[in-house]
């Protein structure tokens, strides 16, 4: 991985062009290139480089969890002593049902320094998982809070704003991951027939 290389203006324009998604077209890279003055090959090579460098963490299908039956989404925050945040952030982040683990600064009236995210099929499942975290990491006495999500007002890929110059995508609320186990094997279990529609669409 090549570090410390900033994306050039063409990279930023390319990332901007595909932020909302690749076209559903037999030649998506050619279509994207048309708007940028790049050939299909140039687009493919640039994306390959941005992936190899780690600027693009992953390229592929970004799913919406609620529509897929993951109705309960909780941000679980922990007020940890400064010198334990990294250790516990790594331990909690390694649990298979934890999809994000970030350190953020505490603020007045908001003592929490570690933010973890759990997506589950329902609230009880999430609450049981929070208990497992507490047990696993000995956090029963640590101040924590569980913030279940309610309405989703907006969800989309990072926009680069009116400046068209690029911006980071902080995936703090939606684009989740599972370390190591990215391609879990599907289990041929019955799918809920009405998985969608639980949440009003974003305006």
């Amino acid at each position: 991985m090549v570090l410390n290389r900033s994306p050039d203006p063409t990279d930023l324009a390319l990332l901007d062009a595909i932020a909302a998604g690749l076209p559903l077209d037999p030649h998506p890279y050619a279509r994207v290139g048309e708007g940028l003055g790049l050939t299909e090959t140039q687009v493919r090579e640039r994306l390959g480089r941005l992936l190899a460098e780690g600027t693009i963490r992953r390229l592929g299908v970004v799913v919406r969890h609620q529509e897929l039956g993951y109705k309960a989404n909780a941000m679980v925050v922990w007020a940890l002593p400064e010198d334990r945040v990294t250790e516990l952030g790594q331990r909690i982040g390694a649990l298979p049902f934890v999809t994000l683990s970030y350190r953020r600064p505490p603020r007045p009236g908001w003592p929490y320094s570690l933010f973890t995210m759990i997506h589950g099929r329902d609230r009880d499942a999430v609450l049981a998982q929070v208990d497992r975290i507490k047990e696993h990491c000995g956090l029963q006495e640590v101040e924590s809070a569980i913030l279940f999500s309610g309405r989703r007002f907006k969800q989309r890929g990072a926009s680069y704003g009116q400046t068209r110059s690029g911006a980071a995508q902080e995936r703090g609320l939606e684009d989740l991951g599972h370390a190591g186990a990215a391609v879990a094997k599907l289990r041929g279990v019955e799918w809920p027939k009405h998985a969608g529609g639980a949440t009003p669409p974003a305006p």
Partner: protein
Amino acid sequence: MSGEALCLDAIDRRLLNDFQQGFPLSARPYAEIGAHLGIGEAEVLSRLARLSAAGAVSRVGPVLAPKRVGVSTLAAMAVPPGRLEAVADRVSAYPEVNHNYEREHRLNLWFVVTAKDQARLAEVLGEIALTTGLEVLDLPMIEEYHIDLGFPLQWS
């Protein structure tokens, strides 16, 4: 967007689960995916269009590493319940805001802001505070302990 029932067959499930990363960089990526799934390119495209229309797929595209391009933060506000929708609409109107959720807490509105630089980020947060008359908590990520490689779906 959604509202219609989502009926997913085995191919849909593989399409949703197996291609969250490693999307082909070949000239005809959808054809390559089709070859993996034993279906044609046109069917891959029509299935993705259907799953997008149903809301199950947000997009087929990139997830960027944090702190590589521009700046971002997570922001939180304690909004009086009667004003929540109006304030949420005002926040969502910014192109710099890409996620905006209600959460069950005194701090009940949470959103991610991305911008080209720190100055613009501060400007967006400042404008939101000023126009709503509410405090905006700025909670930038300091360290990341989990690598996003996609979300393994379990059909149970």
